[in-house]
């Protein structure tokens, strides 16, 4: 078994690309419904098609998130989910996973912990990457500097509204891969993927060799396949996992994400 320590985010993405495969990156919110279930969910996703996993740290004011992930964060916080127990759980479970873990957190909890201690602690817990949705290029310098010594890769986001010259700079600074936000909007389940994602992928590929992951709004195997065919190196699916995991008992939720994860992987493995 390959443990997480063998792979960086970029290492994992590059290896998949070398094999001509599109990566599947599921997202779940830590602590919803509880950390024990989160740990099990990470293992289930890891064994059923996930190539990397995004783990959301619940935050009180998730500006970039739609109703599903907002509600999951609120539930997790109401249950008393704190950063330290999340990292403790991750430390226990990450050695059993082959998928590199990417933490998804808003900036204030990082700032509050202290940027350097934060990176040190998440690296010790076994995280390999970080996505901070409210930290655009202009504000990211301190975080990139602190990330360096810990080996954590900080992935930056490109939006449909990002002008071309800015896309180039973001692509240049982004680590691991480039996170292309597929909608002008917040996270959530949508019935259709905007066709301009295709031209955005073309634009991005023309300015960078780095892998590109597409996320926000992808909730069905058919959509994942579509995005892969448009040239995505990774497909990120969040709300659709969070919603399934939260539906019914923890056991039912885990069962549902197992089936769903497999169907997504199958769709992008053809």
């Amino acid at each position, binding site marked *: 078994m390959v443990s997480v320590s063998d792979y960086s985010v970029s290492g994992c993405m590059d290896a998949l690309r070398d094999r001509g495969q599109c990566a599947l990156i599921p997202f779940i919110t830590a602590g919803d419904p509880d950390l024990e279930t989160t740990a099990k969910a990470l293992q289930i996703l890891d064994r059923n098609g996930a190539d990397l996993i995004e783990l959301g740290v619940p935050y*009180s*004011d998730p*500006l970039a998130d739609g109703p599903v992930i907002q509600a999951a964060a*609120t539930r997790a916080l109401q249950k008393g989910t704190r950063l330290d127990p999340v990292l403790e759980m991750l430390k226990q479970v990450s050695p059993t996973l082959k998928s590199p873990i990417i933490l998804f957190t808003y900036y204030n*909890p990082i700032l509050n*912990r202290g940027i350097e201690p934060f990176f040190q602690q998440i690296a010790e817990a076994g995280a390999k990457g970080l996505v901070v949705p409210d*930290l655009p290029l202009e*504000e990211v310098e301190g975080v990139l500097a602190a990330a360096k010594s810990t080996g954590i890769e900080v992935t930056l986001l490109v939006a449909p*509204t990002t002008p071309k010259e*800015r896309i180039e700079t973001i692509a240049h600074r982004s680590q691991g891969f480039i996170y292309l936000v597929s909608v002008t909007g917040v996270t959530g389940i949508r019935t259709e993927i905007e066709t301009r994602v295709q031209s955005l992928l073309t634009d991005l590929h023309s300015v960078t060799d780095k892998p590109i992951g597409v996320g926000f709004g992808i909730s069905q195997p058919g959509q994942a396949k579509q995005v892969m065919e448009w040239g995505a190196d990774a497909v990120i699916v969040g709300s659709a996992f969070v919603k399934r995991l939260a539906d019914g008992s923890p056991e039912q939720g885990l069962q549902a994400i197992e089936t769903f994860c497999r169907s997504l992987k199958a769709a992008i493995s053809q």
Partner: protein
Amino acid sequence: MLTTDSQANLQPADKAQVPDAQGRFGKFGGKYVPETLMPALSELETAFYQYRDDASFQQEFYGLLRDYVGRPSPLYFAERLTQHYARSDGSGAQIYLKREDLNHTGAHKINNALGQVLLAKRMGKQRIIAETGAGQHGVATATVCARFGLQCIIYMGVHDMERQALNVFRMRLMGAEVRPVASGTGTLKDATSEAIRDWVTNVETTHYILGSVAGPHPYPMIVRDFQAIIGQETRQQCQERWGGLPDILLACVGGGSNAMGLFHEFVKDANVRMIGIEAGGEGLQSEKHAATLTRGRVGVLHGAMSYLLQDEDGQVIEPHSISAGLDYPGVGPEHSYLKDSERAEYYSVTDQQALDAFQQFSQLEGIIPALETAHAIAYLDTLCPQLEGNPRIVINCSGRGDKDVQTVAKFLMPEQ
């Protein structure tokens, strides 16, 4: 006679003034927002710099401030309030009110809403969104949208909709859609988050009229500069009254727009003392307060670095104040800057002190103040005994209290 178009000024007096090109007030401010919004913030900044220097924009803005808003607002000598705080020998603070409550829609909020709607119109945005706490900014935004025929959507916490029902009705009457926000405590913080989410989604067609000197750059600067008319008029009115400056400026601070509007003109006048009053809620020891500058730590909320009420994990704490307009866990970044540089002082008063001031002020001056404004007035109890001589105090009478009468009645006569 003061005329709004002769002396008012949207341009910074000094190029060294904050914010800098990155939108920083010292370490505070910045743009901590999803990437999707970054181009819109740049577009807004460019438009603001372009139009604030544009003669036709200025003519329209100051013309409407005069004829539609009713500016200049008077500087009124509060005679009986002054007598109330006088020493036994008759000496004591001379208290003046900058009567923003007399503006159209009943508060200072219209100054900024008007400026921003004129910007939106020039940027070709047909859809306007805004957040509101007490409803004053929502009413001001609904008003200017009606005036210019623009679609208007107001996000308001469900708790605030209940305690500010009159303002909800006013907004709807003027054609705005009021969208209830139930997340969190259903107050201003949650309404602001929801407005930002709407903006992220509809950014290409929509202008977000943020109502306070908070949020990502360029909002703290834009809102301040549109509100700066308050201080600019005050300076001229003081000059006309006594040929000098005020000694003390006093204003309530939630996000901080009425205080910045009064203070900005006087920041460089080192002899003018500037005091901001936050909502102490049920007391600073109770954890049920909104005293961000007094009790917060530096953090990031709604796009800006500033003082913030947060727990040990960096989760934002739900604030409390009897006043919906002050019930906010953050504060405008320039206030954090003025606090740390010790240019301005910030204190708090409790719900009870504000309620007492609300009644006393109504009885002494025949003016029912907004509960927000009552916080600034309440601080006179603490301030006046500390003062020597006959200093001139200008209080920003930021809004009228009609909207709060039901809330206050519930507190005064809970059994009914």
